[in-house]
């Protein structure tokens, strides 16, 4: 899923400062799962902002609404009436959701309330870890299902750097060395030979360095 984190309230206050009537629009998919922008977070943030603005002596009208998915027109449509009657929209979706709204509602400022952080997994309750950078050319088959592009701080393809100690990364002792994990997993799988093979330079054209990507599925276009 896409993992995000709500912006600090001080920053949100600055972002919404020019407006007197705003809609906080939640998204019921990824950001809901990571407690950043679902219905509950919309309610909590709205109350906090109302209180904070009152304290500051600022008059503001805050409306709340949540759609199932902000990155799809079909779902955004449900929020259209609420969006149209406000001066601005504080979106608690990921960056894709914010931009999908901005594309559809050209005349209304769409403001981000969440910092989109990564594609990750729920490691345990309340803990999310980054696992994929969406490089467009998945090589997990040779790395035992652990991505070194994403999980090694130096994006090393051919084994660990000299800073791996006791299974931890030199950059952050709380982070597992991706290569230690890869080696352990390949050992279990009996695929240690993968480690001896030279991995050529990665072709980054399938990633973001080729500019924003577009996926066209002709077979689904009606």
């Amino acid at each position, binding site marked *: 899923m896409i993992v995000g984190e709500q912006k600090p309230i001080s920053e949100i206050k600055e972002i919404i400062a020019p407006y007197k009537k705003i809609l906080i629009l939640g998204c019921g998919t990824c950001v809901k799962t990571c407690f950043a922008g679902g219905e509950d977070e919309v309610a909590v943030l709205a109350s906090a902002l109302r209180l904070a603005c009152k304290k500051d002596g600022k008059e503001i009208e805050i409306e709340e609404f949540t759609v199932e998915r902000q990155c799809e027109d079909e779902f955004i449509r449900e929020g259209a009436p609420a969006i149209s009657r406000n001066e601005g929209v504080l979106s608690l979706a990921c960056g894709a959701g914010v931009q999908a709204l901005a594309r559809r509602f050209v005349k209304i400022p769409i403001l981000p309330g969440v910092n989109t952080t990564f594609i990750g997994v729920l490691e345990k309750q309340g803990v999310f870890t980054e696992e994929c950078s969406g490089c467009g050319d998945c090589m997990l088959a040779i790395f035992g299902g652990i991505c070194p592009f994403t999980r090694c*701080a130096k994006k090393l393809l*051919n084994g*660990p*750097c*000299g*800073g791996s100690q006791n299974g931890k990364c*030199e*950059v952050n002792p709380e982070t597992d060395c991706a290569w*230690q994990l890869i080696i352990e997993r390949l050992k279990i799988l009996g695929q240690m030979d993968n480690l001896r093979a030279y991995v050529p*330079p990665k072709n980054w054209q399938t990633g973001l360095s080729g500019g924003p990507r577009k996926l066209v599925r002709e077979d689904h276009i009606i």
Partner: protein
Amino acid sequence: MNMKASGKLQEILSKGEFAVTAECGPPRGANAEVVRKKGELLKGYVDAVNVTDNQTAIVRMSSIAACTHLLQMGLEPVMQMVVRDRNRIALQSDIMGAYSLGITNILCLSGDHQSFGSQPDALNVFDIDSMNLIRTVQTMREQGKDMSGFELNEPPAMFIGAAANPFADPFEYRVIRLAKKIDAGADFIQTQCIYNIDRFKEWMKMAREEGLTEKVHILGGVTPLKSAGMAKFMNNKVAGMDVPESLIKRIAGVPKEKAVKEGLKICQETIAQLRETKGVHGIHIMAIEWEEIVGEIVEGAGLTPRP
């Protein structure tokens, strides 16, 4: 190992003589005099001077420029090149540029992560990794082609070095990684500073068993300790460093004013052990910002005069 590149370091190693190199860190500024002074201190004591590339991710004079200053004083440089700051286009371009200036040795490295440096907010590049860089330099030399396969009008014929850390984890993988670096094109290997000689010897044994010492010249890294504090710092704070407790105790056991002397004694003992270790073809002295001690270490080890 193709012998197109022709420097003193390569010559000495191919003749089977014991090589001595030392490190030289460029200044945080544009003053070439700092490099020349360091060069003067090393002249006559080493076969080549290894010039770091923004080490510890702190911005310094470029390795290529500092190497050129050393060349002009008649010293042979080994240009370090890290993949942290440049993409493949810039790396290849700089390799050709360096060779055109007379630099014939390169040490291919990943580079210290920028979070350790003075500008942790910088973007890192890591377009290719150090293994890919080794292969790139080798392909340039052996096939005369750049990474796109384009034929270069004069290929840079670099003598290729790589780093190895026998003390990092996972230990069993360290020799596999060494083998990969040799296959990718490394002619010589510089190791991390050696304090845990037993572990180093174990690693060398594994390397010999895999036949790797026949294919590559291994230079053992040494750094003289100045104090017990430094020994502890290196062990606890420097990633991938292994200073055994017994050594820390030994240097802590002498009066403070004698710590430097004890550190040098330890360094000499390490060098003596390295010279006896089969497959070790030289030493690399990393006396960080203490270049004036290199001469004493080399002389003390009876490794002067240099060929």
